[in-house]
């Protein structure tokens, strides 16, 4: 078995006719293109990991080191004993809380707009809800700041959770509407014939059926909340500061702690990587607001 043939076999299974020259070129072409895509995508990620294991002076040496010369975990230790651990904890609390509230409010609304939009403002109001997601966050930030300041709620967890509703609720409503639409109304009607109330039918029939959609939506909302920066920049100080806010201050005003930035980024990405490995295709439907069924 030639190398080319073997590669093709490993990569694509033996579906092509084996030894033609065209097939060989094709395999080489495909393999190199896949490699280019992968290298371009992964290099910045690799560089993050690489930098996160270097001591600070080595992050600014020329020539740059493609593998840490002095391998150290101290950036992780430093960032976690410094500001890192509290902002990560804050990020977990804010993002989980924000997700839970958004789901609690958004899922029923999504159901309403899927089943009977005419009763709740119709399709146009549904579209209007979605369009709120398109707002540049800067537009409502100013007045929101004064609102929350008036009630003394700057830099608190509930405030951040509420603020994130502005972009999360439209997302949940829209996605869940699309998922509920996939479930035939007849299923609920059958349940009602059996003596369920509509509320019971919703909880006992529709909700379980739509649970894959709920998982997708939850994850997506969580990721957006986890990575949010502009609201957090204006609305947090100390007590509720999330991790994206401290990242610029590690390489900004006074410091160039590239290794700690990298370490914090790696830590912040781990949960998301785990999830994206598990979820994959489901996330795609979410990312397209339900437009692609996957």
């Amino acid at each position: 078995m030639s190398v080319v043939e073997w590669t093709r076999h490993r990569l694509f299974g033996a579906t092509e006719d084996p030894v033609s020259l065209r097939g060989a070129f094709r395999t080489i072409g495909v393999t190199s293109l896949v490699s280019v895509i992968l290298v371009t995508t992964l290099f910045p990620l690799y560089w993050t990991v690489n930098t996160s294991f270097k001591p600070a002076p080595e992050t600014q040496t020329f020539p740059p080191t493609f593998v840490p010369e002095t391998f150290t975990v101290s950036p992780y230790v430093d960032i976690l004993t410094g500001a890192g651990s509290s902002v990560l904890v804050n990020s977990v609390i804010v993002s989980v809380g924000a997700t839970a509230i958004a789901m609690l409010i958004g899922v029923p609304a999504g159901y309403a707009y899927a089943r009977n939009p005419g009763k709740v403002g119709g399709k146009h109001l549904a579209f209007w809800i979605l369009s709120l997601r398109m707002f540049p966050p800067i537009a409502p930030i100013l007045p929101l700041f004064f609102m929350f300041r008036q009630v003394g709620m700057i830099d608190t967890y509930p405030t951040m959770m509420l603020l994130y509703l502005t972009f999360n609720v439209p997302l949940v409503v829209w996605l869940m509407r699309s998922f509920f639409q996939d479930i035939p109304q007849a299923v609920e009607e059958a349940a009602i014939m059996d003596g369920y109330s509509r509320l019971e039918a919703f909880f006992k029939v529709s909700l379980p059926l739509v649970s894959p959609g709920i998982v997708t939506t939850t994850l997506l909302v969580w990721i957006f909340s986890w990575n949010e920066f502009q609201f957090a920049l204006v609305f947090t100080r100390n007590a509720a500061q999330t991790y994206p806010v401290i990242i610029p201050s590690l390489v900004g005003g006074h410091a160039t702690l590239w290794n700690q930035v990298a370490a914090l980024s790696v830590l912040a990405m781990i949960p998301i990587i785990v999830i994206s490995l598990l979820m994959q295709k489901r996330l795609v439907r979410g990312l397209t607001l339900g437009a692609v069924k996957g």
Partner: protein
Amino acid sequence: MASSSDDTQAHRSTGLSSYVRNEHLEYWFAIPALLILLALVIFPMLWSLWTSFTDLNLSVATRNGAFVGLANYADLLTSERFWTTIGNTAYYVGFGVAIEFTLGFAIALFMANYTRGRVTTVLFTLLLLPMMMAPIVAGLIWRLLFQESFGPINYLLGAVGVGQPPWLSSTAMSLNSVLIADIWQWTPFMILILYTGRLSISEDLYEAARIDGADRWFTFRHVTLPQMKGVIAIAILLRAMDAFKFFDKMFVMTGGGPGTSSELATYYNYLLGFDSFSMGKATAMSWLLLLFAVVLANVFLSVLERGEGGDRVV
């Protein structure tokens, strides 16, 4: 809210609980979401609309909110910096989305045609990773990669002898550098959507084209493209909206500089509000930006709506 048909049904039921359970279920389900959005978006935006017609400036005591009509809007529309940042945003959104789409579409079709099984799965998983990074992190990492004196990109370019671009320190390059980071992060988004969209086209159509003896180009023009129209529109518009909204990457990569060469409109708006504290102008600019967003959103929504009636992409 009740329509006439609801009313007749309501007469038949007794007591509040059955209202909730049955006829008015949608109403109770939707109200919390609508109230939240009313309080957190609509109400602040009305304050901001009102302020945009005043001279409110929080750093100068004499500018305390007197009505000035359309002066703020006029000031902005005649200001060079406003148009520079709008131009930067248009460039950033336009080129960014165009390149992401072209690359993404090409790679998606390539994957659909040439990769199978495990390769596809692995590619798919790895392509998700850049999107999962916080934009602010992606921006900083690219700033590190782009460092002119010790970054790996210029080192590698120097090693192969093709020159070392002044990525972040020249006005000609700075916005492009931010754009490159954006393309890196979001091309995978295009790939994944378009790939999924391509796979959902029925193989029968391709089979039919093959039987008719259509060549690849013809098949692409007359099968792939029309079938994917809806998905393509959605992918482009979603990306355009996000690129328009956020300044995270620019904020950490260049801070808008050198000069205003990479300053995006939303960031200038942030500075007007939170640095000049010229609230009248800042809110006026928010509304102007919103106007742009609404126009874009309407295009998006009409595409979705058409999708609902026709080949149902939603």
